[in-house]
């Protein structure tokens, strides 16, 4: 299944890209993060993150569909 991933802040720097389309056998954001964490050596653990699918907050066990867009959200620091 193809999934679009966008990266921000620390994750963007560690992945060294802002966006990519991955082809994965996993179907939840939680499993996909585990896969990407090991690939890019992300410093943030999954319990430090939130996840958005198609610009809405969702759970890490949300069932993804082909070409959904995922954003893993590091702790925010606006203001």
């Amino acid at each position: 299944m193809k999934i679009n991933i966008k990266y921000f802040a620390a994750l963007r720097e560690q992945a060294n890209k802002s966006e990519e389309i991955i082809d994965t056998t996993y179907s939840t954001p939680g499993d996909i993060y585990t896969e990407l964490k090991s690939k890019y050596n992300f410093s943030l653990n999954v319990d430090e993150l939130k996840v958005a699918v198609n610009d809405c907050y969702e759970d890490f066990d949300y069932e993804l569909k082909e070409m959904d867009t995922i954003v893993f959200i590091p702790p925010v620091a606006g203001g």
Partner: protein
Amino acid sequence: MFEISSSSIEEYKSKSFVTPECGGVVTFEGRVRNHNEGQTVESLEYEAYSGLALKEGEKILEQVREKFDILDAFCVHRVGHLQIGDLAVWIIATSKHRREAFRACEFIIDEVKKTVPIWKKEHYADKSIDSKWVFCTEEHHH
């Protein structure tokens, strides 16, 4: 309305939100300060996940209208590379009675810091310290 801007937001300060029934106007400016947790800060980079940030921002402004008896509320957040003294966020709340405008304005900045997907990276004067993406702990930045 909630906005995100990649250029200076100083000009928003001169926009008028006043209506005839408005008695009190409270504004909050969050600015880049030259220190944080003992370090001399040289500049800040703000990055936003705009698609979600605008939705979360609007949600905060809806909440504030439900919770407080205000006439209007507006927030704009800057993104990009900011220098010391630059305006990072500007909020205005207008009301008939001043208390509601104070409560509303403070609620907005508190919630923006908690729920809107915006991040900041601090660059330090001491170049032996790596720039880092900071988390928003209470009273972290302003």
